[in-house]
């Protein structure tokens, strides 16, 4: 089964992102939203964790990066921006949603 993992906490503050990365399987997806979007910034310790995740697709919630002043150009390569409708699509297209609250 393919899973959508969601992370809503800053990787600099909490272990949710790291814990999610430790459990995500090839073929699954990770959506970063709320303060979780900070894991999508290029040039931090998180970039390598994102780029080295084999077969995992990363998404970031557009309204949440915009609110936080993060320009799309600063995102780690390969991360796709979605809106809330896209979040809904991700939730329905994968077999289940796992929230790393």
């Amino acid at each position, binding site marked *: 089964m393919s*899973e959508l993992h969601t992370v809503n906490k800053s990787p600099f503050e909490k272990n949710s992102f790291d814990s999610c990365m*430790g*459990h995500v*399987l090839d073929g*699954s997806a990770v959506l970063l939203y709320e303060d979780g979007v900070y894991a999508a910034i290029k040039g931090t310790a998180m970039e390598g964790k994102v780029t080295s995740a084999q077969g995992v697709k990363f998404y970031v919630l557009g309204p949440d990066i915009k609110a936080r002043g993060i320009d799309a150009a600063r995102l780690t390569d390969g991360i796709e921006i979605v809106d809330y409708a896209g979040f809904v699509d991700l939730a329905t297209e994968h077999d*289940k*949603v796992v*929230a*790393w609250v």
Partner: protein
Amino acid sequence: MSEQIKKFLYLNRRAPYGTIYAWESLEVVLIGAAFDQKVSLAFVDDGVFEIVKGQDTSESGFKNFSPTYAALGDYDVNQLFVEKESLEERGLSIDDLMHLTWEDEDEDWAEKDSIRVVSRSELSEIMADQDVVFSF
């Protein structure tokens, strides 16, 4: 209440007492046991602290809810997966945990261990195999 049988996993990642998530999660597990679903619990990250033995809140003023874990077996909740790496990072081993058991009706009520220590990668596969994952 429903014809479908689903695989439910309760994902426990929080320490007890500092926040109420662990306790109120346990309340869901107990209520959920009345529904005919296939239930298991995962203890990951600080969630492993929930089932450490010897908890004593007598000087804290709040209720010690840890004995409830020992009752889970009576509710046919007997699949408790504990992540090995999470234990090790916290300086814990299985000997630090409560001894949680259940009685197997099919084997003349033989007492069996409810806890199974699994690796992070095994737990990832267990999670992937579920229909629903509850996070609190």
